[in-house]
């Protein structure tokens, strides 16, 4: 959906990067098999992290084999094969995307509407399947999406209040990763801060665009931006506020992260939590997080 939660490749071991890619590949294939071809196009790195957390906390039987991929048909690459490790991430992904696209259909500009309108029918069957397995989660996400929309209609809420529903969505999603009551609580908090991180990143990333088009943006309200073009000082003010908010968020995220009982893949998750997420925000902070730069940084 957003893809802000991703690894920082320059600091990864080659074998870790191979695994990371293999998980992404495996998840993509899983979604294709389970929910149809179009669901694969909606996959983002956020859910790769969810799958990795799942595999870190719970022991699954997994294996790797070499497979071809439609995006890069010329070469074979490592792909994760697992019976159950990817199930939950795929389900959570389709549930979240379904509601997100529904939201776009109602709110976004023409482009977003058309995209959502075209993809949604292909996802319906998949969504129903996933909802059958995680009915409570699907309902919670749906009501939180509504809450987010409601809170964004208000013009005098605090920045934290705008973050709340989105953060809660990730809280719900993350808390399913363990059956242990204590771990569940920690995972919930951990997820909350992941959601908060994503929301703040998204707000800053879209700020200039939202100003231009007159869309809602929590930063616009916080700093009372009314012009269509943001002056550099104004943007500076907003991004520094975001930097502090992100740092506060990441510190709390880390407090909960260290309490998680990870049995596998810890170095990869460490990379994502301590380096990757901050790197993504830095790119946004410096306004270099457009498609090209992002790919340069990760795929070169």
């Amino acid at each position, binding site marked *: 959906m957003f893809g802000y939660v991703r690894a920082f490749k320059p600091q990864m071991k080659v074998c870790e990067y191979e695994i990371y890619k293999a998980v992404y590949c495996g998840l993509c294939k899983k979604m294709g098999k389970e929910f149809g071809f179009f669901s694969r196009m909606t996959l983002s790195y956020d859910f790769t992290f969810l799958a990795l957390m799942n595999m870190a906390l719970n022991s699954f039987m997994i294996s790797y084999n070499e497979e071809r991929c439609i995006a890069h048909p010329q070469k074979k690459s490592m792909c994760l094969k697992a019976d159950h490790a990817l199930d939950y991430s795929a389900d959570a992904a389709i549930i979240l995307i379904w509601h997100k696209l529904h939201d776009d259909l109602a709110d976004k500009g023409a482009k977003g509407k058309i995209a959502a309108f075209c993809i949604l029918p292909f996802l319906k069957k998949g969504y129903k399947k996933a909802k059958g397995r995680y009915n409570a989660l699907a309902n919670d996400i749906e009501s939180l999406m509504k809450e987010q929309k409601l809170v964004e209609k208000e013009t005098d809420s605090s920045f934290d209040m705008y973050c709340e529903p989105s953060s809660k969505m990730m809280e719900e999603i993350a808390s399913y990763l363990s059956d242990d009551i204590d771990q569940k609580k920690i995972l919930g*908090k951990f997820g909350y801060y992941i959601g908060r991180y994503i929301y703040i990143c998204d707000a800053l990333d879209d700020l200039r665009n939202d100003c231009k088009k007159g869309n809602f943006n929590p930063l616009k309200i916080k700093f009372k931006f009314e012009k269509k073009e943001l002056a550099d000082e104004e943007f500076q003010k907003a991004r520094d506020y975001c930097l*502090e908010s992100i740092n506060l968020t990441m*510190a709390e995220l880390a407090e909960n992260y260290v309490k998680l009982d990870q049995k596998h893949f810890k170095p990869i998750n460490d990379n994502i939590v301590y380096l990757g997420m901050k790197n993504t925000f830095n790119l946004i902070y410096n306004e270099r997080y457009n498609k090209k730069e992002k790919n340069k940084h990760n795929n070169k």
Partner: protein
Amino acid sequence: MKDPYKVLGVSPNDSDEKIKAAYKDLVKKYHPDNYAASPLGDIADEKMQEINAAFDEIMNIRRGGAHASETTGSSYYGAPDYVQVRKYIQSGDITRADSILSGVSNEYKNAEWYFLKGSVCYTRGWLNEAFENFQTASNMDPSNQEYAAALNQMNRNRGGYMNGNPNPQYNTNPNAAGCTGCDVCQGLICADCCCECMGGDLISCC
């Protein structure tokens, strides 16, 4: 019921300020935090209730008994509720803690109110508001260690601290100066100048 003035150790002729000060001292003395792991906790608790009730009553008398003591509980100076708020926060009952806090009107908001409000926000994950409240609390009462500790932790986090970071040496703060290509050239030219001063040369062309 005991004479409320005796409970607080003041005389009926004392000023409001003096009574508030006496009350504050007693609250500090019998605060449940001081007796968290002690068998005296229950006694302190009882004493605390007695002090709160006495203070409530005196304040009511002085206001001409305009309010019944049950209904005023949450809307004037003093901490009868703050003790309860702390209990709620500790037990994770954030909604109740917050509802007591929001009952306090602006003119009675003291440093402790801001600190507790900050704690409520912090527990909720509303970190920006938590930080602002801790800051206000600390500004209003700079000598309080509790407020200062909370603010310090927030300030450390704002600077980018993360618990358990295996590679803190990679500073990912975008404002921090790194070693760029520019820095390297500058360094070389400086070194060259130094060499030339001493009669040598590092970069022959300049």
